[in-house]
C-alpha cells in the first residue's frame, strides 16, 4: 500500500530508544512487526517541557484504564498532546510502568556490552533517562508512561495480570499530534511480561501529514471532557 502522505518510515530495533518532536498536523503509526512488541512511551510539550503527559489526568478524564482508538493523551495543563486515531489492537497498557536495571538483571541475567555488543541487555528506565538527557531533561522530569501493544488486566481485588498475545504481527496504533510533542519511545519488554527470555521485539514507525481534527472528529466528540480538551488545546495556538 502506497500512501503519498507518508513523510518517512523507519524501524526501531528491539530494546532500542528513539525520540522525535512530532509536529501538530502529523501523525505517527507504530506497527508491531513480529507480534508481541512493547513500546514504552513518554511525552512532553516540546516548546515548554514542564508541560508533560499526565497519566492520572488522562485516565480520570476518560474513566479508562486502557487505551484504544477514540481516546486521547492529556498533558498536566488540560491540553491534548496526542489523539489515538486508529488502532487494530484494542488495548494498550497505562499501568505497568517500565523495567529497570534490577528487574532486567533478575529476570534475564546480565549481558554486558563487552561480551554481547549491541545485543547487551537494556532496560526502559535507564534508556528513558539517557534519551531525556539529550533534550535537557533529567530524573525529575520522568513521568508515568504508556506501554503500547501490551495489556495488563486488573481483577476485583486489584491484582494485575499481564495478558500474553495481545498484539499480533502487523498490528498498529496511530497517534495524531495535537501539539508539538517531544515523544520518547523504547522497545524493551514489558516489566510484567512472564517470558523468561530477553526477547524484545522491533517495531516500524511511519510518520505522515494529516488534516486538522474536524468539529466532528471521533476523538473530539468521544466525550464532553475531550471536547473541552480540544478547545483548550486549540486556544493554546491562538
Amino acid at each position: 500500500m502506497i500512501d503519498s502522505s507518508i513523510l518517512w518510515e523507519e524501524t526501531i530495533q528491539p530494546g532500542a530508544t528513539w525520540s522525535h518532536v512530532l509536529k501538530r498536523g502529523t501523525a505517527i503509526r507504530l506497527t508491531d512487526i513480529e507480534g508481541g512488541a512493547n513500546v514504552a512511551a513518554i511525552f512532553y510539550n516540546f516548546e515548554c517541557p514542564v508541560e508533560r503527559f499526565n497519566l492520572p489526568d488522562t485516565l480520570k478524564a476518560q474513566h479508562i484504564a486502557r487505551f484504544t482508538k477514540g481516546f486521547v493523551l492529556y498533558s498536566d495543563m488540560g491540553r491534548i498532546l496526542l489523539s489515538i486515531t486508529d488502532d487494530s489492537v484494542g488495548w494498550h497498557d497505562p499501568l505497568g510502568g517500565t523495567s529497570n536495571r534490577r528487574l532486567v538483571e533478575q529476570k534475564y541475567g546480565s549481558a554486558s556490552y563487552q561480551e554481547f555488543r549491541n545485543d547487551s541487555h537494556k532496560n526502559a528506565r535507564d534508556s528513558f533517562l539517557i534519551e531525556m538527557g539529550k533534550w535537557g531533561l533529567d530524573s525529575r522530569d520522568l513521568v508515568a508512561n504508556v506501554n503500547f501493544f501490551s495489556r495488563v488486566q486488573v481483577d476485583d481485588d486489584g491484582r494485575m495480570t499481564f495478558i500474553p498475545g495481545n498484539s499480533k504481527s502487523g498490528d498498529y496504533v496511530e497517534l495524531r499530534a495535537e501539539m508539538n510533542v517531544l515523544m520518547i519511545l523504547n522497545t524493551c519488554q514489558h516489566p510484567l511480561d512472564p517470558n523468561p527470555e530477553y526477547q524484545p521485539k522491533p517495531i516500524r514507525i511511519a510518520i505522515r501529514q494529516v488534516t486538522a481534527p474536524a468539529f466532528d472528529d471521533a476523538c473530539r466528540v468521544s466525550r464532553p471532557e475531550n471536547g473541552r480538551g480540544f478547545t483548550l488545546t486549540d486556544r493554546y495556538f491562538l
Partner: protein
Amino acid sequence: MSVIATGTLVESKRIAADAIYRQIIPAGEPWIHEIAKGQYFRIVDLHGNQAVDTLFYNAHDYGDRYSAQDTIQYQRNIYLTTGTKLISSSGNVLLTIVADTCGRHDTLGGACANESNMVRYAIEKRHMHACRSSFLKAIIDWDHGMSKRDITANINFFMNVPVTPEGKLTFEDGISEPGKYVEMRAETDVLVLISNCPQLNNPCNAYNPTPVEVMIWAAEP
C-alpha cells in the same frame, strides 16, 4: 459498592499520647514535612472519605521520588494497603504501610488541578482551588529548589478508585469513615508533601472537604 475483606484491616499498637508530632491539616491546605528513617507516620481521616493527596521524596535526592507505577508493578496490585512498599522511581523502598483501618487506597486517580478541573467539569471552573496549586504553594514555601517537575503521580489516601477487568476506571463511594487511618514506617529519610484535597466538584468527599490529622512517632529502639 465495593466490599473490602475485613481481614485486610490492620490496627496499630501506637497510641496518640506517645506521638512526637501531631498536626491538623485543615481542608484545602498543604503540609510538607521531613520524616526520618525508622519513624512512623500516620494520617487520620477525622471526618471520613477525605482525599489526602500525598507525594513522597527521598529527603536527600528529590529526583528519587514516589512512583505510582513502580509501586503497583512491584506488588502486582493497584491498591495500597498494609504491607505495601512505596517504591521510588529509582526502585528504592521509601516507606512501608504497617497499619491500615480503611483497607484500600488509590494511586491512579492523581491530584486535581485548575486545568484538569476545566477538562473534567467545565472551563469556567478554572478559578476553583485545587490540589496541584496547594502542592506548588507548599514547595515554594519549602524553598529547597523544588518545582512543578517534582509534582508527579500521587497517592490518594482514603480514596476508592477501582479498575474493572474491562479496563474502566471508576470512582466508587468512599470506604473510609471518621477515625480511619493509615500508618507507614519510613525506610529511609523522606520528605512528605500533602494536599488535603479542596475538591468541590466530586461526590467522593460528599462535596465537603474536611480536616485530617498527621502524627509521627519516634523510631523503635
